[in-house]
């Protein structure tokens, strides 16, 4: 059994603040409304199109290692959310919150990642700058 440190449903809050990110393969594989948090160690961070994805290892209750993978949106979307190709490095400890697939496989869609130094990488868009910063002058 995977080591799940926290499980909490935050569907209401996330739906209120989120901008939709449609996965390349759609939504049928994912458990609607799920939000699972696990602690693990990064093995690989793929900065890729059409989706970036993170591979990380989590120790279960018996000490066995479970290989997790969780997708994000594409690089352009992730840059807008403050992520970068260098955001995650192999060996780094992370706490990953994600929507998980149906059927129990260790696969998910990232909602947020908390780094060891406390920095939060979210897949939600930050608030938009004031219009005077984004709209060209006539």
């Amino acid at each position, binding site marked *: 059994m995977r080591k799940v440190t926290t499980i909490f449903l935050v569907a209401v809050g996330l739906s209120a603040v989120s901008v939709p990110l449609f996965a390349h*393969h*759609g939504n*049928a594989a994912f458990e609607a409304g799920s939000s699972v948090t696990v602690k693990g160690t990064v093995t690989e961070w793929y900065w890729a*199109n059409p989706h970036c994805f993170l591979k990380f290892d989590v120790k279960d209750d018996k000490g066995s290692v479970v290989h997790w993978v969780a997708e994000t949106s594409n690089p*352009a979307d992730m*840059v807008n959310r403050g992520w970068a190709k260098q955001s995650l490095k192999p060996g780094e400890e992370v706490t990953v919150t994600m929507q998980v697939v149906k059927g129990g496989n260790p696969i998910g869609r990232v909602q947020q990642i908390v780094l060891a130094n406390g920095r939060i990488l979210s897949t939600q868009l930050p608030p938009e700058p004031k219009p005077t910063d984004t709209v060209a002058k006539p």
Partner: protein
Amino acid sequence: MLRRLVTLAIAVLMFSPLGRAQNARPDPAPAQRHDISGIWDPANGPGDGIGGTGSKAMPEDGKPEHQLPYTALGLQKLNASKPGNGARMVQPGEINDPAVVLCDPQGLPREDLYELRTTQILQTPVSVIILYEFDKIWRVIWTDGRELDKDPPEPRWFGYSVGKWEDDYTLVVQTNGTDERTWLDKAGRPHSADLLMEERFHRVNHDRLELTVTINDPKMYTKPWVALDKFPMKLLPPTTDVREMMCSVSEFREYDKAMRFNNPADKQ
């Protein structure tokens, strides 16, 4: 407790697309005549043009008011498509969307209806050129007075487009000759080679552009229907760096393998 609720409500509004939509400049300048050039972004936030469940004006969400007027052939072709989103969504391994499982170009009209993101429009004396962020694709709309060829030489992913100014601020673009292998939208709606697509680019003012897309394809639909209705876009600074967003086949296969989606194309 009440104070916390009020704070939460304000935060939700600030972060929501609705809240962002309120951030319009109060008195935008009028637009120049016959000019839709610029770098444009969906005005209601970058997610507004994604269209994951199909055309924004007519999503495939199972609601009766969004039921399209299919012909018998249109319905047959619709039922052959297996999309990953919408009311008919299937598991990833069953999806047969060529743009998803093969990284094929999504062509027109889907480029307007799925993943309409930051869009750069350039104008020359004889044409309007559109650079789309998604797929890093460009197309040319001829504005030199020519008529649309009623019998285009061969099908193209993005067809053949001719534009005419209906008034000082509205460019009406007709497109035909599209490749019928493409899906009309992400929900798997069909189109035939006889599709005539109309785009109306209406510049409301200096800062705002609206796009309306109408589908006219008698082989697939018994009457024309509006797929995008005055979709609002806002002007970005001319120095905006439009990022890459595309489907890389090699990276897609790594992703598909890692996510265990059993992409049908990987089994070929």
